[in-house]
Structure formats: C-alpha cells, structure tokens
C-alpha cells in the first residue's frame, strides 16, 4: 500500500469511526441499570444555567457518557483482558482470578473500621444484652482471599492478626472459630459468598458450640445453573457460571418465616425463587437484604432462641441453624438502626451470635 492511499484511507476510516460512534452515542436509548455491575447507571443531566456555572452539568455529563457508552460491557471486557493477559497485571480494578476463582483484594487491614464495627456491637451489648441472661458468641467468616492470596502472591490481610485484634475489641463475646472447617471449594467461583450446600458442617458446628446440636439431612434443589456472581460482572472477564443450590428438608419446609421490612410482619419464603433469576441470585436466601426476619421452627421441643446479627453470609446459614432453635431472629444492622432494635426485639434469655465476614468488618461504615 503506498503512502498516499494509506493516508487517505486513514483519514476516511478515522473520521467515519468517530462519526458513527458519535451518532450511536447521541441516539442510543438510555439504560437505567447495569446488570453486570449491579448498579444504577448515570442518566442525562438536566441543563440549566446554574448547573453549567457550578460545573455540575459537565461533571454529570461525563459520568453519563461513560455509563451509557454503547457496548460498554464489551469494552470493559476488552480492557480487563488486555490488562490481565497482555500487561499481565495481577489484578484489574482490584479483582483477580486464581485457582479458578474470581476474588477481590481485601487489603490492608483497616483498624479504624474494626473499631467502628466493635463500637456498634458494644452499643448493642450495653443497651440490650448486658445482664439479660444471654450467651453472646462471635464468629468471623474469612473472605476467599484467606485461601487464595498467599499461594498466588496476592496482597492480603493477616487473618490471624485481624481476628485476634477484633476479638480484643469485643471481650464479652465467646469466639467460635470456623476457619478450620472451611476451604476454597465452599465458596462460589464467581461470587464472594459461601455455598449453602457446603456449609452444613459449619451450621452444625456453630449450633453445637451454642448448645443447640442437630444433625440435618437435606435435599439439594438447583435454583439456577447460570449463577454469575458479583465478581463476574465486576471483573468483566468471560467466566463460567456457578450453580446456585438451596437445601431443604421436612424441618425447614415447616418453618414459618416472617419479614419485617417495613416494621410490620409479613410472611414469606425461606428461599425466594423469584430472586434466583434476578439481579443478584444469591438474594434468594431469605430474600436478600432485610433488616429483620424471624424463622420459627414449630417442630422442635426446645425453647432455645437465637438472635443472629449478620451480613449477607448469614442469609444462607440462618435457615440451616433454624433446625436447632425454636426461633431465630435474623438482624441486619446495615438496614436498621441499632437504636431502634429495642422496639422490634425482646432481648431475654437467648443465644446471640454475631456472624460477620472479614470483608464487612474491614469496611464497616454500613453498620448503623
């Protein structure tokens, strides 16, 4: 190809590319939500003299053009593949693939966040639990990096130190160590959470330590064989989906589940199959985010009750624990103010388990 022809072609192709993409940008209908990233996308900002002179318009317009860019997910995949495969970067936006799992770097340990979490728990202890004949337990769920980071050369918190530091901050809790019972296979490959079908031993161990031993036998139900977890969308890398399963048996089927999303009781299901096909399929367990849920087991002789303070890891283990208790109250203080709990729960003579993941404890600003 001679220079003249190359230069003419170059100008025509470049101009055409700019113009075509530009036209698509202008005419493409807005997308309200990114399924892959599980977040709302920026919409076209309102034009006004005030928004222009304050700089708000241009700032929001730039966010809008990035969020609404045509084939954005494909471009994100190109970038992720280039970064990790060509530049051989160990992570892309903090996400990485190792041993067939997607994970996110959780580093460094944030002592301030641990203290914030401990303060919230201390408030609950001092306000509701102290002198109420309650047994207070703590268990910490390690994130996947506990199993992945060291062998694969990723930055990671020192988990032993992390848990020891947190235990020191909540000396009134009895710590139950579940780390030895867990392995990488107990977690979804594309998601941050553990698999319900892999944690029956954890549930039994916890119950045993709290004096509510049970031995459950279950039937596995496949809710979705195309479960793309939270990391799949965030990483933008092409990955194989996980299978999302739930466990059931006669005891669990007979449990009465009540949700208090608005403060008022509303009966519901242990497993919300509608959500299994939704934006975040893991939300099928106890319908995902809910401030307060009770699970009552009518077929048990004991009067033991459990109050479970939890993050999303608790959603899949709470149903299993229901087999050892007459009633479990599942509380998520990310969605309800701790100061308000006295109006919803009568604290008296219960087991109380604080079950939180290292990820949440290390990023605890969401606790209220």
């Amino acid at each position: 190809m001679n220079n003249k022809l190359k230069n003419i072609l170059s100008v025509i192709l470049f101009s055409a590319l700019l113009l075509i993409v530009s036209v698509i940008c202008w005419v493409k209908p807005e997308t309200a939500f990114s399924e892959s990233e599980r977040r709302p996308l920026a919409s076209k900002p309102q034009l006004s003299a005030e928004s222009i002179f304050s700089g708000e318009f241009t700032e929001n317009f730039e966010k809008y053009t990035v969020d609404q860019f045509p084939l954005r997910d494909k471009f994100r995949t190109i970038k992720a593949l280039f970064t990790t495969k060509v530049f051989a970067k160990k992570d892309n936006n903090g996400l990485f693939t190792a041993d067939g799992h997607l994970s996110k770097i959780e580093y460094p340990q944030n002592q301030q966040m641990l203290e914030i979490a401990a303060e919230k728990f201390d408030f609950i202890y001092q306000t509701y639990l102290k002198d109420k004949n309650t047994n207070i337990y703590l268990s910490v769920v390690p994130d996947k990096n506990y199993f992945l980071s060291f062998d694969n050369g990723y930055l990671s918190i020192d988990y032993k130190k992390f848990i020891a530091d947190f235990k020191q901050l909540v000396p009134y809790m009895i710590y139950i160590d579940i780390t030895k019972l867990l392995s990488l296979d107990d977690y979804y490959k594309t998601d941050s959470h553990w698999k319900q079908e892999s944690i029956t031993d954890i549930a039994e161990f916890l119950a045993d330590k709290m004096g509510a031993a049970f031995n459950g036998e279950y039937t596995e139900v496949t809710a979705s064989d195309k479960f793309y977890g939270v990391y799949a969308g965030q990483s933008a890398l092409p990955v194989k989906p996980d299978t999302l399963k739930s466990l059931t048996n006669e005891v669990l089927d007979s449990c009465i589940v009540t949700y208090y999303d608005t403060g008022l009781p509303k009966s519901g299901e242990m497993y919300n199959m509608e959500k299994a096909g939704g934006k975040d399929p893991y939300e099928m367990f106890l319908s995902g985010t809910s401030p307060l849920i009770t699970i009552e087991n009518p077929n048990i002789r004991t009067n033991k009750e459990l109050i479970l303070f939890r993050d999303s890891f608790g959603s899949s283990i709470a149903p299993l624990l229901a087999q050892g208790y007459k009633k479990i109250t599942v509380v998520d203080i990310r969605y309800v103010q701790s100061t308000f709990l006295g109006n919803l729960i009568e604290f008296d003579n219960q087991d109380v388990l604080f079950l939180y993941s290292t990820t949440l404890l290390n990023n605890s600003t969401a606790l209220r």
Partner: protein
Amino acid sequence: MLFSSIPFLYYFLPIVLILYSITPKALKNTVLLLVSLVFYAWGEPMYVFLMIATIALGYIFGLLIDRFRGKPLAKVFLFLSATSSLLALAYFKYADFFIENFNRVTGLSVPLFRLALPIGISFYTFQILSYTVDVYRGTVNVQKNPVNLATYVALFPQLIAGPIVRYSDIEIQLTSRSHSFDKASDGIRRFIFGLSKKIILANSLGELCDAFHLSADKSVAFFWLFAFCYMLQVYFDFSGYSDMAIGLGKFFGFEFMENFNYPFISSSITEFWRRWHISLGSWFRDYVYIPLGGNRVKRLRLFFNIFVVWFLTGFWHGAEWNFIIWGLYFGILLTIEKFFMSDLFKKHKILSHVYVIFFTAISFVIFSADNLTSALSYAGGMFGLGGIPLASAEWLYYLRSYGVILAVGIVSATPLVKIAVNRLKQIRTAANIINFLEIPVLIGLLILCTAYLADGSFNPFLYFRF
C-alpha cells in the same frame, strides 16, 4: 475538557471536525475560536471570562506597543502588558503561597484566598507574554485581527497543557495554512499514539503511584519503584498530551513545535532539558535567560542567571517550595555539569546515562510531593532514612503486577521502536507491510483507549497545578 475522555472523543471532536470542514476558509479561525471557548468553558465556566479578558489586554497592548514603536511609551505598554498578565497569574496561582509564607514568617493569620487555579493559566499567560514581547522586539507583526490573536491563544489543542506555542511560530499559519490528507493522517497517527501514551501507559503507571501514596508498607525498594514509575507516568502523560496537541493541530492545518524528544536517553542533565518540555525551556531561554545576559557574562552573573531561570522554572510548575527546590536542584546540577563534568560524559557513556536516570528519578520524587516536608521525607525514603525496611510485600506485589507495564514503558520511552520501524521501512516489502498494518494498529489502539475510558478507569489530570 480532557482529550482523554469520552465527551471529547465522541461528542466534541466529531462536531468540531464537521463544523471546521464545512466552514469557508475565511471563517475557519472564528469557528476554531468559538469551539475553543466551549472547550475551555466546559471545565472552567467562569474562568473563560478571565481568559478572554487576558487575551483582550494582550491584543490592546500589542496594538499600543506597535502604535508607539520606537518611543518610550512602547516600553511602558510592554511593561503594563507583562505586569497585567503576571499579576493575574500571581493572584490566581501564587497568592496563597505568598500569604502562607508571610503568615509563617510574621506569625500573623492573614486569611487565604483559596481560589481554584484556572486551568491552563500558566500556558496562555506565557503565550500572551511572548506575543507582546515579540511585537515590542519587532520579531513579529502586530495582529490587528482580534479573532486571529484569540485563536492563537485559545486554540484548544494546545490551550491547557501546551506546547507553549510561540506566536512567531504560527503567525503565518493563522492566515494561511494548508490542509491535506497527508497532514491529517499524520495528525491522526500522532493523536492516537499520544492518546495511548496517556491512557494505556501513563494512567496504568499512575495507579501504581497512587497505591504507593496510600501504602502503609513503604520500603526503600518501593520508593525507587515509585520514582521510576512516576517519572514515566509524568513523561507519558505530558508527552502524550503534547502528541495529541500536535496531532490535533495538524487536523486544522497547524504545525506546533515538538515538546519532547526521548528525554530519558540523555547522557547529561543539560541534554535532558533540551529534550524535556522543550517549549518551556526555550521560552525561559529566550525571554529570561538571554535578556539577563545569557552566558556571555562574568561567572558570578552567570550563576545568578542560572539561579533565576531555574527558580522560575520550578515556581512555574507549582506554588509550593518543593517545586522551587526541584527547579534549583536542576539549576545546581546544570551548573556542576557546565563547569566540572563535561569531559566525564564523553568518556563514560553508560555511567552518564545512569547518572541522568538516578538524578532525574530523585527530582521526580521531589516533584511528586505535595509540599516541602513530604518532598524531603520521600527523597529520604529512597535512601532508607526514617528506618524503613529495604523491601516489603507491597513492593514485591506491585513489581510483579506492573512489571510488564513498566517494561513496555521503558522501551516506549526510548526511540528503539521508532528506529526499528524506520530501518524496516528501508526494505520495500517491509515498508508495504508496515503501511498496511498501520491503520489496523491505530484503530486497535483507539478501541483499546476507548475500552479503558468506558471502564471508567483511573484518569487523573496532572496539569491542574501548572
């Protein structure tokens, strides 16, 4: 508006290219001026009026200097022009620095202005200054058409991050310039290479630099890794921006001066500054150093001249002591080279390159700091002061993670690829293959840059304090 952004690439630029193409020749500058004002107002909706006022003053003083040429009044108007431009720069960029230091010395608490720095003020102030000085010197004709003068100053490709285009360089091009496929194609190539340098290399290296700043696990090795990455980041960021400016200029028929010429292959600091930010260095040479007498003066005066130029070079980059120290650091190195080391470089080629990289790495660590205290702390960290360990887990992780990017950066900072391509082009078949591959490579790079932007990746703006 940033060149390396979706709004610029896919909203602003296509509209501008269409408008410019369909506009008759006589109105092309008017269109360029209007879109340049929109470009500037996009990021600085209020300060666009400051820029217009500064241009208006430059225009009026230019006319007055010309009107009273050869008379004392011409000097007065030149003085007024320089003073008004520099006062605006001093007020918006340096006022708080002066107040802070005044407060520190006197113990008073004079309140700070806390003004946002108008983007590009250092660049356009210097362009207007050079214009009025050149009119006074008679090296350029006065520009009687205000649109043409405003187009020269506000021309969006070079407005916010240079190169500092001299009026003398584009005086003729403002009224008579050619457009061709060859020039436009050259501009596209230059623009996309610049965009890639900025987005793919500079921003990636910048992520590591940010991680270093946030790290609580610093070590001597990590300081050096940061130093190399930061100097490459600034180079690719700044030279990438200059490439984009030069490339965009070619779209519109302009030829801007080169601003970078592989500075890291230099074998002396003197050579480094002939290859780094060339338009700034030559500006200070022509408008400060030579008027002070240059090097045709007594030794003591020469030291003074060098001190003034490098003090100002440092201060131009930012209103903090670390920038002044950074400038003077180079001034000292250049003085030592000038008087004591010229033979050394001729005899020891490898040593001279190591020397340049070593001292520029330290200089960029000083440059990267927010203030003098952290500059000294960072520079000390490179030599293990403060009891930091030799190596750390974070250093090892980031070295592994960014090893390839760093290697690509190092190779791209040398002319190796350019030399190889030029040699291959001497073989006819290879030249044909290279020509054939050029367009797919450019489109591939543009898609890759778009992918980085669509991902909302790290995209800092390093020029805000210039």
